[in-house]
């Protein structure tokens, strides 16, 4: 195949912006958790468990997870773009990372709604 430097994918901005928006979500979530912890009457297992029974905390955490996974995806892909030159290897790594992130996401949901 002819060797071309292919650029012009027109998605750089979306990712760059997403990384910043997800970062804001994560900061907000961190503040929420800190606030919740401070407001806990007592810091023990039962109170901790009760906290995570709240729908607010569960959905906030899911939102956080989505942000985190997307943020991580962009960051990790950026690293691969910097260092991995071979498109085949890069694509394989992308797939591995995506599958891993989905698995982490599923696992987290399972923890939140599990027994």
């Amino acid at each position: 195949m002819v060797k071309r430097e292919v650029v012009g994918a027109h998605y750089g901005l979306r990712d760059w912006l997403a990384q910043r928006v997800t970062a804001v979500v994560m900061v907000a979530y961190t503040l929420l958790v800190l606030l919740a912890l401070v407001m806990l009457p007592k810091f023990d297992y039962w109170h901790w468990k009760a906290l995570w029974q709240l729908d607010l905390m569960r959905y906030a955490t899911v939102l956080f997870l989505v942000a985190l996974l997307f943020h991580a995806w962009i960051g990790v892909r950026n690293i691969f773009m910097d260092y991995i030159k071979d498109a085949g290897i890069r694509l394989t790594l992308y797939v591995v990372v995506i599958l891993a992130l989905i698995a982490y996401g599923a696992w987290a949901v399972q923890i939140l709604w599990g027994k």
Partner: protein
Amino acid sequence: MRLSIYRYNPDVDAKPYMQDYDIELEPTDRMLLDALVRLKSVDDTFAFRRSCREGVCGSDAMNINGKNGLACITKIADLKEPVVIRPLPGLPVIRDLIVDMSQFFKQYHSVTPYVVNDTPRPETERLQSPEDREELNGLYECILCACCSTSCPSFWWNPDKFVGPAGLLQAYRFIADTRDQATGARLDNLEDPYRLFRCHSIMNCVDVCPKGLNPTKAIGKIKDLLVKRTV
């Protein structure tokens, strides 16, 4: 003065090596370039580029004690000895301190580095307010020495795809010019995960620029415009 200099001549050397020198300076030798010229008068096989010797032509960019800079405006007195001098990092070495800058200039050329204005030419100058002209300060002064781009890790990893700080500074120089009408096309040209967004705000470019320019700030302004265009 003690110097340790990167030497490589593909004609005779199997691989690069560092050569130590101890040279006598004259009282008039104040800048590192003076010392290198002095050295060359002793060892004429030592090759480097130089021209204006006052920091405006951008020829004698090199890596001095680990930091990119222009030899002609680097004072000998400020340097720790032995002064270790290497070619600019990340570009192919042709010989000694002379690097092949084609990749660097290719990126510069890729940003449409000229004012685009297709309106009929007026009889007089195109007017520009002093405030609008001020927008070009900190941009047009670039001397294309490549100190910034060759200190940028993102440029090291992707010199073929990432425009690099020097090219992006110039890209913004034309976006910032009120006489230019191609902002849309210029932003299209840069909206790419590689061309612009390899910049991770490491800011080595700002740290080394011998003219005190700030490519990171210019890149930030391009990103702001892209956001503004999208939302």
